[in-house]
């Protein structure tokens, strides 16, 4: 395999987008990745880590800001000729029938009419859509819609099938069924398919389908680690080997998001210098604390992840938030409820609010915002002003709008300061504002 030219290759690819106010948002940082013939590459990462952008750069839909994109060893000009995409949202044209939608895949290929009809019939058969040729997408269930999406991609006879969270919009059972069908399709020799690039946020899905699992880190998106997966086909979820692999990937992911020691032993930050916060809601945190308390106050992080139905990475973000507020502690892979955390779970809503109020007052980011508000006239400040101040003190890659949203959500919950969405301003005097 090593001797063959990769179907697609990225070398040192960066992608940045200009934002309002002249700030630049880096989505991808120095990504180098080659997709060899005959392999399934699964890119694993939480939402918003730039993995969908990666797929669009590979197919030529989006040009990189910096770096090289190669197609079979040649620099890619325009679209990758051998690639097809399956979309998470299915992206079917609602006014076309199943047959007409599938036929879109053959456009611009110069296939004669009769042959095109035959090919469309063949792939419709292949994905199990016989009898639905004349149906409109609206009449189909989610699973059937995605079959149309897959047929539309396959009818081109692509070498490289790019799948962007293909099962993300489906219910669990349908996703399961379609996943095995895709493996079978992929192993058939007559589809012409050589490789698959799968974008996913589910560890199990990556292990089930991927020969190589590319673990993506966030802010900005980058390749953290590549895990080989040589489990033989057909893979089964319950087997020991499978679970071991899932565990291995889990370890990698946890190390990435919850390092035991800070990667850089940073000097103690000044007490009111703003720092990024995990984008987590307080209800989520409360839910997780309660689960933890039910299970005796400590748990393995994977087991905890399995109990919550959050997206991959989200559990870890919630744990991080708890750690930040001293409600949780995370030695190695354990998650432990602190004394404060126990008090929080035991308290009634008002006690919880008070406790959180005290904790937020200690957090540098909140101290910073409170400081700003205290110096402002009438102790009110516009959202724009606060965002500006935050942006000036944080690395340029930090998404300020999201951080602001988190700050508002937390402080509303703890009644630290309030936010008037109509006037778009923060105010300190929570009691006074409610009273007037």
């Amino acid at each position, binding site marked *: 395999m090593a001797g063959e030219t990769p179907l697609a290759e990225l070398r040192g690819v960066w992608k940045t987008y200009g934002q309002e106010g002249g700030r630049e948002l880096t989505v991808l940082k120095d990504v180098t990745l080659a997709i060899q013939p005959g392999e399934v590459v699964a890119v694993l990462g939480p939402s918003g880590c730039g993995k969908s952008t990666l797929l669009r750069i590979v*197919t030529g*839909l989006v040009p990189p800001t910096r770096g090289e994109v190669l197609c079979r060893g040649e620099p890619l000009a325009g679209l990758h000729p051998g690639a097809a995409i399956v979309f998470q949202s299915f*992206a079917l*044209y*609602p*006014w*076309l029938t199943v047959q007409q939608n599938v036929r879109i895949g053959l456009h611009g290929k110069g296939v004669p009419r009769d042959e095109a009809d035959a090919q469309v019939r063949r792939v419709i058969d292949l994905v199990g859509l016989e009898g639905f040729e004349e149906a409109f997408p609206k009449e189909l269930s989610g699973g059937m819609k995605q079959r149309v999406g897959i047929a539309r991609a396959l009818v081109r006879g692509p070498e490289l099938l790019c799948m962007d969270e293909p099962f993300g919009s489906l219910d669990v059972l349908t996703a399961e069924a379609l996943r095995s069908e895709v493996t079978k399709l992929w192993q058939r020799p007559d589809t012409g398919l050589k490789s698959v690039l799968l974008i996913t946020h589910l560890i199990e899905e990556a292990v089930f389908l991927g020969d190589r699992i590319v673990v993506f880190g966030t802010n900005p998106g980058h390749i953290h680690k590549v895990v080989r997966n040589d489990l033989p086909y057909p893979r089964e979820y319950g087997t020991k080997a499978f679970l071991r692999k899932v565990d291995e990937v889990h370890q990698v992911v946890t190390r990435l998001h919850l390092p035991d020691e800070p990667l850089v032993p940073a000097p103690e930050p000044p007490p009111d210098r703003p720092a990024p916060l995990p984008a987590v809601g307080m209800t989520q945190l409360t839910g997780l604390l309660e689960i933890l308390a039910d299970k005796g106050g400590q748990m393995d992080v994977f087991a905890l992840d399995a109990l919550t139905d959050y997206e991959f990475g989200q559990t870890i973000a919630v744990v991080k938030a708890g750690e930040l507020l001293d409600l949780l502690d995370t030695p190695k892979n354990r998650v432990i409820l602190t004394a404060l955390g126990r008090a929080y779970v035991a308290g009634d809503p008002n006690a919880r609010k008070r406790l959180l109020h005290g904790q937020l007052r200690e957090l540098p980011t909140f101290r910073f915002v409170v400081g700003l508000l205290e110096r402002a*006239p009438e102790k009110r400040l516009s959202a724009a002003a606060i965002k500006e101040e935050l942006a000036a003190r944080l690395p340029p890659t930090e998404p300020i709008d999201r951080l602001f949203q988190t700050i508002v959500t937390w402080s509303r919950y703890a009644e630290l300061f309030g936010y008037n969405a109509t*006037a778009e301003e923060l105010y300190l005097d929570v009691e006074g504002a409610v009273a007037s």
Partner: protein
Amino acid sequence: MVFVRARSLLGRGPGKGETSAWVDVMVLLLLGAVLASFIAAGREWARPLAPQVVIDTSFAALPGYTLLSLCRGLLAYVLSLGFTLVYGTMAAHSRRAERVLIPVRDVLQSIPVLSFVPGLVLGLVALFPGSNAGLELACVLAIFTGQVWNMTFSYHASLRAIPRELNEVARLHGFGFRKRLLSLEIPSAMIGLVWNSMMSMAGGWFFLTVVESFRLGGQPYRLPGLGSYMAAAIEAGDRRAILGGATAMVLMIVLVDRLLWRPLIAWSERFKQEETGASERPSSFVYDVIRRSRILARVRRWLRRQGDAGTSATVEAAPRRALLRRIVARVVAAFAAGLVLWGGFRLALLLLSLKPGDWLGMARALGFTALRVAAAIALGALWAVPAGIAIGRSPRAARFLQPLIQVLASFPAPMVFPLVAPTLAAAGVGGNTVAIALMLLTTQWYILFNVVAGAAAVPHDLREVASVFGLRRPARFALLYLGAVFPYLATGVVTAAGGAWNASIVAEAVHYRGGEMRVDGVGALIASSFDQGNDAQLAAATVALAALLVVVNRFGWRRLYRLSDERFAMNR
């Protein structure tokens, strides 16, 4: 305030949430201007009856005339709003009322403004003897008939579309009528109401020249305003004055858009029910400025308190009040029925006085006009669909051109007909072609406007499919854009057809200095019967036109909408 000023001197403008004294000064000035205009308009009303004022066609007179017309339009709009709320609420709350009110609306909607004018003027002038108020009121009501239906339609549709759960919550919590209206129904309908108010206001200007200056039974009537200014300019063949009047019209449309509609649209955003994060939110500079006014903030707070105070009077809808309401409803219904009967009787008398030959001619005229309307729509779609898609595909072009097209669509095209028609006629163009060209001039903007909006709203992933599967231009147009803009095109075509039928009255018989261009058609028929005071023929032509439009509506447009809903709607 010194603080804010100091900050802006330092190069950092005041943020969104801060107030400013300047804004208050501006708000007060604006309020003063509005008040002054209405006082000036009020003086017109109080004048003794003078059917025909002399119109000054100098530019200096233009601002005053424009303000007078604007006051009439705004007054008509307030009436339309009130009517809409009452009519829509009645239709939405009572099955029985709905069964009557909706067909009545469909018929009334298709009656051209001109057909209302004789009755309104004669009736109201008689009601206010010796005062100009009757004539003014007739004019306002004529503008009102051009505005109201659009809004009523939207409001009723919005009330019907209120999610069941929300209605159930209102019932469970014992919302009274007022609370239900203020906290559920109007907020749910707000976005549609604001957009349609904007369209309605534009529709009201359409016949401005006609409703401010007309002949009735040989007697010329003329009210001071922009419409009669244009009419006088046309009569005098004064091209400079015509262009000046048209410019004043455009300025008025743009100003009303910037000062009234844009802020309202930006404000009404908060009533959006679904949360769509990515799409661009409408913004308005004026709205952002107004929000910094302290006076308005006070007013807002006061209004909010009033709204809260209204919540307590709810559950105890006493049986006595229910009885009273039922009696009032009966009386209103009886009165309305009497009015309809009497009107029907008078109408029947009028219609019976016509000879069979007249009816035959009417059918022929309807056929001709229908063909012209169809031709105008087809020609309009032919260029506006590709152009609209091209504009809509480029976000920058759309952002830049959309407001421009909107102004063009709001501009009452009949105002410039007398400029265009002689030029075309001099070039040897036949009357039929001129009529179609004038209809096209009126209606193409509706198609363009809607298609641009549709092409701009094509979901990103559907466009990516077209790119990734290499759909080239013709295929991309046919498979992606034509389908994606279909619902918008349908709306555009239906609106355009309505506009074209209305325009036929001015397009099939164009008067200009030194000539007249007339072709056989129902529009020309209505216009000439109106001018000659031939009430029987005016009534007959109106009835025939309304009947045809109701049929087209039922069997044509409704089917088109259903197709667009079933096949082309984006809710995937």
